[in-house]
């Protein structure tokens, strides 16, 4: 379940989005200012913005400013855009568009939301591990990744797969994955490092979003996983290195000879 932050002043539009979002949760903003504040404080996976939410505001330019601050948070524009506005929206960095005419089709809206949500951390993790660990292990990892923003803990992860904590631990051992606790720690750090690449976020706010009591606690978690001290955290290289280290720690249950074949 992901959090969707939405700026849709029109009540009908809100109904349409509500009809399409389950199982995701929607947080409603009443203004651009509130939307920015919301995204800074909440781990929003996708943002939906009505281009004409506020009068005398250039919607595409607002989207551009948002994507400058939060380049990794997918923005879906909502409303009736003409050719020029669509042209500008693409340049502004919107990830997709939902036209008012299609908004009453929950299937179509859901497809667009899922596609946007799919551009998060999971594709990066999957690319690293797909050929090395088997399908069941990938399912657990996918579920945990999707729910990190909800501050998922080991007991909830075990319950989601209808097993006890000790069974989940044994399975992780068999799949040659880290223990469930360590797995969640890694995923929190990877999420955090990815969020930190957005200029609009601070270590303190990301730490809070991930359930840490302070920025310092989040820093300790980073140190416990990727190591290092006083290194810059806001860079693509750090995230890439962390992903490689994580993949290294996940030994994988598929023999290397099979991977090479």
């Amino acid at each position, binding site marked *: 379940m992901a959090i969707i932050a939405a700026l849709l002043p029109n009540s009908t539009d809100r109904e349409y989005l509500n009809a399409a979002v389950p199982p995701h949760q929607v947080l409603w903003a009443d203004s651009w200012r509130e939307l920015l504040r919301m995204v800074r404080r909440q781990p929003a996976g996708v943002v939906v913005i009505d281009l*004409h939410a506020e*009068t*005398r*505001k*250039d919607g*595409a*330019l607002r989207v*551009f400013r948002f994507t400058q601050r939060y380049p990794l948070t997918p923005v879906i524009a909502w409303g009736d*855009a*003409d*050719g*020029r506005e*669509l*042209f*500008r*929206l*693409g*340049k*502004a*960095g*919107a*990830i*997709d*568009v939902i*036209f008012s*005419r*299609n908004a009453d*089709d929950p*299937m*179509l809206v859901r*497809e667009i939301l899922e*596609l946007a949500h799919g551009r998060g951390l999971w594709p990066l993790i999957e690319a690293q591990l797909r050929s090395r660990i088997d399908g069941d292990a990938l399912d657990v990892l996918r579920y945990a990744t999707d729910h990190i923003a909800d501050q998922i803990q080991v007991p909830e992860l075990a319950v989601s797969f209808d097993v006890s904590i000790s069974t989940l631990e044994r399975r992780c051992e068999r799949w040659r994955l880290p223990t469930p606790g360590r797995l969640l720690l890694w995923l929190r750090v990877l999420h955090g490092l990815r969020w930190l690449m957005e200029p609009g976020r601070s270590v303190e706010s990301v730490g809070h979003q991930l359930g840490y009591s302070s920025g310092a606690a989040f820093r300790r978690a980073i140190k416990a996983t990727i190591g290092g001290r006083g290194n810059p955290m806001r860079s693509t290289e750090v995230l890439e290195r962390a992903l490689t280290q994580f993949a290294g720690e996940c030994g994988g249950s598929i023999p290397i000879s099979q991977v090479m074949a």
Partner: protein
Amino acid sequence: MWGINPDFTGDGMTARYDRLAPLESPNREHAFPGWSVFRDLEGIERDADAGRRARLRFLALRPAYRLVARGFGGVPADSFDRQIDRVREELGQLPSRDQERSALAALLNELRSREPQQSIVALLAVSEFCEANGQFAAAEEYARVSLDLARRSREFQLSNTATRSLARIALAAGSLELAGQRAQEACDHALATDDRGEWIRSIGELAATYRGTGDPSLARDALLQALKRAREWGNDALIGLAFAQLCRHSAESGQAEAVVEYGWSSLRVLERNEDRAQVLTLMGAALNSLGLTRAADRCYSLVTMRANSPALRVVGLAGGTLIAAEVGDRDRYRERRTATMRELGPAHRAARAAAHLELGRAAFVVGDHDTAREHLRETLALLGPHGATPTRVRAEEVLRALEQRTAPLSTQRSSDAAPDQARRIAAELEHLADSLVIAE
């Protein structure tokens, strides 16, 4: 002026000093699905009609993305049909006889059928339409989506056609290196799937890129190699196709005798009427330049009598007009010019540009300089700023000659100087049955 935000015009919504439009376009992978069609708006994004049309091209392509992402069986029928109906409603913004409206409506009909083959062919048809109208970004996007769909549906023959289309579009847009890579890819795929006809057509595209890089001999070698393979395969239609490619190459290289010989060899064995009509237009121009005007006129009249495609018809009519001007038959020149102008409407932009070039040359020959200038400027306007096509180069040459008041750039020679082989073919052409180019 204090306190006025310079970013916004009176209505408060539209940026006057647009900060977004001048930004670099995002990669296809980073933009939202279908956005690439808007690249055609670069520099003209404030043109309301261009914007409306680009939006419709974008909307018509969106259902195809769903098919690519989820497969033909994976998209809910109700939702898919509703989406198509809504795009169809929006097509009503265009005039009822608008060519683009018809092309997009035909695509939506085929998509609704959810038949992979029909959908892919329809996407390629729109791609071709966009390319002929100079919208290269839209043409590329439609061809890419058709390629993705063909690969997903395991329609290998159509995926070869889509790859070749991508090569042709890149060449038309002036990206020679990319065109070469794609043409090579198209050749490799066609050979790997034993799609011989597509292989010969792809070799034709590869040869065009070699010509573009200034290596016509390499282009000719490639085409002769294709002809050799076609002969080894012993298939007349393939041999005809290889000859047609050589005919096109000779026309681009200005070798009129070779155009006539290769064209004549291909004419009787080519399977598609459209291919035959194209060869006839090339032969018409070549025969005219050799001074064999009766045979040239016959080629053009065969095309105008029998071809269904508006593009081929106007090129044929305009060619006939030039011949009438060059032989000094003013009445026929006026009559044919009027007929050409009447038929220009439904033809695509590239054909209209080619026809205006021929009309400009004809007007120059009869001494009507103002009309000639109008036609040539119209040619350049229709071709737009992108791509260096031979038509543009020729139009600029003729316009330069016109401005300098030099003699008309007639390439026509005396028929006595024509080689025997060309004269023999011309004599046979004059008695060729009308049914050679059969209406489809």
